[in-house]
């Protein structure tokens, strides 16, 4: 048994933070009360610290199988644990892609063996993520995928996307859409705007996202599928989702910490760690994303953790791959930027990275209450640190936040009643 004493605890049902003790027995949160005494428990004094439900990430790339020089399930799970995550969903753009039952089984088995973090798998929408034929969706669902996505790719042919959603609509899982029209994004490197002009790089217009988000929302309406818009990045995307929700269409959305915190200005200087898809946008877009998050248009924050090795990123800007890591910096970056600055309540932030994402994949995780799985973490919010490469546990170090001073130091992560991270 583990007894967490004197901490400030976020209670999921009440959405409130209270000073209570938490007793963990095996894999379950056994008791929450103002004062708990338990002789047989390992006591952790959490005075002055905060205890949150284990974070849940809807969107990460663990690169396993196929690209294990960037990340693998073990290093990804460790990175997640250090970020306070106890559940993550991994995207199917592996090699081979997660479009078949044996790759799915390989990941689930390896995840179980590693054990550090609960890993949920997102299956492919199309075979080989090629956008040509429907993947074996029924088998993937039976095998346990929690959602479907061609993330990293986007099905360009509307008819195939329609059929994927229609075929999968009999299952209660989200269609996670990376919405991008390739004819518009083309060879774009950064946002189409002042920065693409200044740097002489091809631009990715906001339109490339919005035109496809519109399509995907309409397809959700027609098929009755639940569409989840991945990494929303523009003002009009937020408006489209807001309207769709008003119209009663089953649509949810996520935003990444980097799109909430940074703008295209960060690309000045050709740092390839600021290159990702969708690209960092304008200040206007960033503000609209934050507003959308606050009013519930955007449901959750997801990292889009996308590891790439240093020799891939230390190239010409045009040649470097898209994507940044995010699991270890997500909470401190958001806490530092928004909560400490009084732009967001701590309770609000925690909900958007715990119970809200768990609802979307319909899993009993990310909840801190009696009887729930013992997934939680302990942060010292008054402790600051500089985010640097040497402390990153992910195999890759491609973060746009390197060198940033952050508040919110993680002390413990507990997953299924076991310590998965200790400072």
């Amino acid at each position, binding site marked *: 048994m583990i007894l967490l004493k004197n901490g400030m605890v976020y209670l999921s049902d009440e959405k409130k933070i209270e000073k209570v003790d938490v007793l963990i027995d095996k894999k379950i949160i056994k008791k929450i009360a103002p004062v708990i005494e338990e002789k047989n428990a390992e006591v952790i004094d959490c005075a002055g610290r905060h205890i949150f439900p284990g974070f849940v990430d809807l969107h990460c790339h663990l690169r396993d199988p196929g690209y294990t020089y960037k990340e693998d399930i073990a290093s990804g799970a460790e990175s997640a644990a250090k970020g306070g995550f106890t559940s993550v969903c991994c995207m199917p753009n592996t090699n081979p892609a997660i479009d078949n039952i044996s790759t799915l089984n390989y990941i689930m088995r390896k995840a179980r063996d590693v054990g550090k973090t609960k890993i949920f798998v997102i299956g492919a929408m199309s075979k080989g993520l090629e956008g040509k034929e429907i993947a074996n969706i029924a088998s993937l669902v039976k095998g346990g995928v929690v959602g479907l996505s061609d993330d990293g790719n986007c099905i360009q042919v509307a008819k195939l996307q329609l059929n994927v959603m229609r075929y999968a609509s009999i299952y209660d899982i989200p269609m996670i859409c990376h919405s991008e029209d390739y004819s518009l994004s083309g060879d774009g490197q950064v946002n189409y*705007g002042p920065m693409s002009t200044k740097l002489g790089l091809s631009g990715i217009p906001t339109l490339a996202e919005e035109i496809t988000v519109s399509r995907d929302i309409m397809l959700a309406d027609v098929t009755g599928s639940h569409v989840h818009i991945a990494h929303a990045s523009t003002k009009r995307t937020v408006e489209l989702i807001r309207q769709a929700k008003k119209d009663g269409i089953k649509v949810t959305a996520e935003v990444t910490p980097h799109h909430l915190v940074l703008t295209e200005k960060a690309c000045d200087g050709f740092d390839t760690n600021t290159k990702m898809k969708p690209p960092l946008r304008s200040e206007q877009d960033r503000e609209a994303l934050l507003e959308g998050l606050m009013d519930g248009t955007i449901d959750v924050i997801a990292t889009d953790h996308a590891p790439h090795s240093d020799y891939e990123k230390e190239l010409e800007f045009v040649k470097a791959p898209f994507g940044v890591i995010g699991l270890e910096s997500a909470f401190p970056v958001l806490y530092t930027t928004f909560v400490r600055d009084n732009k967001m309540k701590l309770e609000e932030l925690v909900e958007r990275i715990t119970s809200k994402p768990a609802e979307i994949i319909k899993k009993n995780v990310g909840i801190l209450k009696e009887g729930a799985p013992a997934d939680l973490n302990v942060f010292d919010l008054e402790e600051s640190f500089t985010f640097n490469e040497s402390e990153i546990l992910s195999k890759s170090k491609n973060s746009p936040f390197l060198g940033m001073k952050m508040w919110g130091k993680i002390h413990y992560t507990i997953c299924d009643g076991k310590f998965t991270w200790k400072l």
Partner: protein
Amino acid sequence: MKHTLNLTGRNLFDLDDYSVEEIEKIFETAKVMKEINSREYKKIPTLRGKTVATLFFEDSTRTRISFELATTRLSADVVSFTSTGSSLKKGESIQDTVYTLNAMGIDLYVVRHSCPGVPQLVNKYSNKPVLNAGDGRHAHPTQALLDMFSIWEKKGSLKGLKVAIVGDILHSRVVRSNLIGMKKMGADVVVCGPRTLMPPKIEEVYGATCEYDLKTAIKDADVVMALRMQLERQTEGLFPGLGEYTSRYGLSNKMLEFAKDDVLVMHPGPMNRGVEILPEVADSEHSIIIEQVTNGVAVRMALLFLILGGKPGREVA
């Protein structure tokens, strides 16, 4: 020299890092170099013992020759690297290429690459001064300096001049560097071309004026610069073809009448005669296109001289 500004060891990625005084100092030094280039024996020994590497990852003839002449006229040694026939074909990265060259004792790099930001990368890996000789569509600061020097020589100053730049603005690194430099030196710059070849927010980024009609753009202009129009933009779906382009944006004598009487006509080269500029204009008394090339060597000599810390009048016995 009038100024005592020190440019030793500086990089030239683009003109935004350079002050008005520094640019003027480059012009004044270029004037001296131009005089040296007009001598029968076009060589001074100031940079003897220094080694310059020209790294041309993208093909270029005139810029490379211009830099190499500039280097040898200052008595520095020059090694040329071109991506064809080099280890890059064997998959060697820029990082390793630079490490290798650096180990052989290079003092300064001149870099041309099709990807923006590569000069910064070369500087990061070499820790030596880098002159950007053109990186993708991003910047071409030595071209901008020679363009501005050419105007400065003729007009005495850029202050208050109206400069119209016409053509494929979107794909032009020459425009971007000139916009930064000319605005800094006090000129009003109008960019003109088809709307599909105009980068977004150009007014906001550079404080330029944007026109889609040639007549309006060159009205009362002191300088008109035409840019090379490339046929491949047609297959990229950006404009319908050269015929319509020339009829709307080609510089003809008739169009030039709207500009000032003493207008200077410029072109960074290579020209497509009969496309963006008609021969009657290219060869007219307004044209300083050939002199731009002459000035290119002088401006590059000035930069090498100032950055490698040459001292005027230092004669080696």
